[in-house]
């Protein structure tokens, strides 16, 4: 008998006034009892809309049914048949726009907490060291994967399972890409990322750190001299965009990438850590996406007063609903319909304030969202000593500028077919490197698709 409660089973969380001073995980996960309770809200629809909403088509009703039956191993097998990184997706996917957005229970009341259940099953598997992956015998073919973010990890895992000899080349000293440098510990513990990476190593994937492809080796060298028969480019969109307003090079203005990398990758939040993070009293974070929320919540944990400054309204915030909710609970102030015009500095070249203009929403623009229009004469001054710019990122030019014949579009994104093929034979791409900045799950979907294409391509060779 289904549980007909209109609300999701609550998940335990650290209290806002406690967690906004530490970096431990905010959401504590379901207990077994809570998971059973939530799983029983699923109606096991014959034509499950949720699955269509998932970029990697996880068999959602099936894995939830196994939870209902108390068969955790079975639940994990269903889940991991489609999703290589479920512990990560359960935490960072924008479920409200994907699976949960389509759930029939959401028509009246809250949808089934699919993300929370995914996390529950995946964490169980990590804790119990369960692996379901079957690795085919080696087929003697070598594939290089560039970048160890969600796209690269997924592509590498899929190919390794098929028997390919896969090497991932990562520019940083830690694998994981944005999962390691971008998303903070309190939202995605790095131990979980490293466990997923270790699982890949167990499949036989070799991970070469400190390798900036395009500098130390080119794609042509990988293919012509080192014997890689196919290459997957999953280098993400790491280049930070700035507002191009006066004052952006003052001391105290940071890209969200820099701020988050110092804190997450370099562990600057730990006491006695050699990498510095700027000491701020009042911070303005520009932007309304997940990265803006992450930067704001880190700045809060560093002890600052934090404002999100976003040019559109609440309904247009691109961040996951849960992140906005958590940020507000933690005491972050949202200055919506506000657009920065200039950052002002003192005589030492350090930020002292920011000039902001109020906006109103006009007609919908190309993105379908109502276009923000400045209200004349509404400028005001915000006293801040730090400005963190989180208005998006673009693909890194290192690969495209060193790979002749690799087509890119006017935004610098690698041009790919739906199957991940590029203009170069044997070279495939996917994730943010080809779409521009998007989500973890879309990158994983692209990595999975490209792995299938690479397999088809190499089988013909």
């Amino acid at each position, binding site marked *: 008998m289904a549980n007909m409660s209109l609300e999701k089973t609550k998940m335990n969380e650290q209290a806002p006034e406690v967690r906004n001073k530490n970096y431990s995980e905010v959401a504590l996960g379901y207990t077994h009892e809570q998971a059973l309770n939530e799983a029983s809200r699923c109606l096991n629809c014959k034509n499950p809309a949720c699955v269509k909403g998932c970029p990697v088509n996880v068999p959602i009703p099936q894995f939830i049914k196994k939870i209902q039956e108390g068969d955790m191993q079975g639940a994990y097998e269903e889940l991991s048949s489609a999703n290589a990184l479920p512990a990560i997706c359960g935490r960072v996917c924008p479920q409200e726009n994907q699976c949960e957005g389509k759930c029939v229970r959401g028509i009246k009341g809250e949808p089934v907490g699919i993300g929370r259940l995914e996390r529950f099953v995946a964490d169980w598997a990590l804790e119990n060291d369960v692996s379901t992956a079957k690795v085919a015998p080696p087929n003697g073919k070598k594939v290089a994967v560039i970048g160890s973010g969600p796209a690269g990890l997924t592509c590498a895992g899929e190919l390794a399972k098929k028997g390919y000899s896969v090497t991932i080349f990562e*520019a*940083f*000293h830690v694998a994981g890409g944005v999962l390691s*440098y971008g998303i903070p510990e309190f939202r995605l513990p790095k131990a979980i990322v490293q466990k997923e990476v270790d699982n890949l190593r167990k499949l036989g994937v070799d991970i070469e*750190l*400190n*390798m*900036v492809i395009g*500098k*130390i*080796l080119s794609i042509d060298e990988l293919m012509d001299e080192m014997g890689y028969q196919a290459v997957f480019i999953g280098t993400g969109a*790491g*280049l*930070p965009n*700035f507002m191009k307003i006066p004052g*952006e*090079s*003052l*001391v*105290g203005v*940071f*890209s969200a*990438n*820099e701020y988050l*990398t*110092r804190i997450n990758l*370099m*562990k600057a939040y730990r006491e006695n*850590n*050699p*990498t*510095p993070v*700027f*000491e701020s009293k009042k911070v303005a974070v520009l932007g309304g996406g997940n990265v803006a929320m992450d930067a704001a919540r880190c700045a809060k944990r560093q002890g600052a007063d934090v404002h999100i400054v976003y040019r559109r309204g609440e309904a247009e915030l691109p961040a996951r609903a849960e992140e906005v909710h958590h940020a507000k609970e933690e005491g972050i102030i949202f200055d919506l319909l506000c657009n920065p015009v200039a950052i002002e500095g003192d005589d*030492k*070249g*350090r930020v002292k304030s920011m000039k902001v203009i109020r906006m109103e929403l006009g007609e919908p623009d190309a993105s379908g969202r109502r276009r923000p229009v400045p209200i004349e004469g509404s400028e005001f001054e915000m006293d801040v000593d730090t400005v963190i710019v989180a208005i998006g990122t673009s693909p*890194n*030019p*290192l690969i495209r500028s060193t790979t002749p014949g690799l087509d890119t579009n006017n935004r610098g994104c690698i041009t790919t077919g739906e199957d991940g093929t590029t203009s170069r034979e044997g070279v495939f791409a996917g994730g943010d490197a080809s779409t521009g900045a998007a989500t973890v799950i879309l990158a994983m979907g692209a990595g999975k698709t490209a792995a299938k294409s690479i397999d088809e391509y190499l089988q013909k060779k």
Partner: protein
Amino acid sequence: MPSKYQIVKKDELTPDISRISVYAPLIAKKAKAGQFIILRATQDGERIPLTISSCDGDDVTVIYQKVGDSTMTLDEIPEGDCLADFVGPLGVPTDIDGCSKVAVIGGGLGCAIALPVAKALHDKGVHVDLIGGFRTKSIVILEEEMRDASDELYICTDDGSYGFSGFVTGKLQELIDGGEKYDRVYAIGPLPMMKFVCKLTKTADIPTIVSMNPIMIDGTGMCGCCRVTVDGQVKFACVDGPDFDGHKVDFDETIARASTYREFETRRREEHKCRLEGMSNG
């Protein structure tokens, strides 16, 4: 065979400046003058960008000054041990084409970076006048190497204890006034030195390349921390540089940006010194 990132050779050039050669064959094969590496001395260490001083066989040589906590930690690693990480070659190589007579100017530790540039030019048959500036005679480094990489070497000391008495700009002015005609000047050293060299060469109308060394994390264009305003445009020193047209660099902004973490760095350095003294006393 040495291990990955092993320090195969280490020597002290002055009590404050050391030179290490690190086993990194792929980097050694690819690197060109003007490019840099980023290293981490230890796990959990800071990422330290250092310009490559030379490459020999499978080894990459860098020279560093023990100015802060992280470089002091680096200096505690003995020859034979391995660094945690070593990544490169990063940045765009120095443009050494299209000139027949140049002045290469190094200031202090900048001489370690000026040296490979001078050598690359000199090996190509370009006439190289090398001006190396130091505070005082006892901290002059790489004198023989610089002599070999130049047609004329002029050592300057601020206090007049060796060579030309005064700043590198004084020597350069003297050479220009004496009738030397340079197609190009390369200036590598502390920001104020580069700023004043550029002021001089702008008046003298000599194109000038400077090598910037801003605060950096990843070195691949990802953090934007190393941004430098050049001709009103924001550039990333790690991928667009580190070399830029010195007449177009906003030095005052760059000098301010270099001070971003000064308080933190001072505190860390003092703590590090205390730890060292604590150890030697204990």
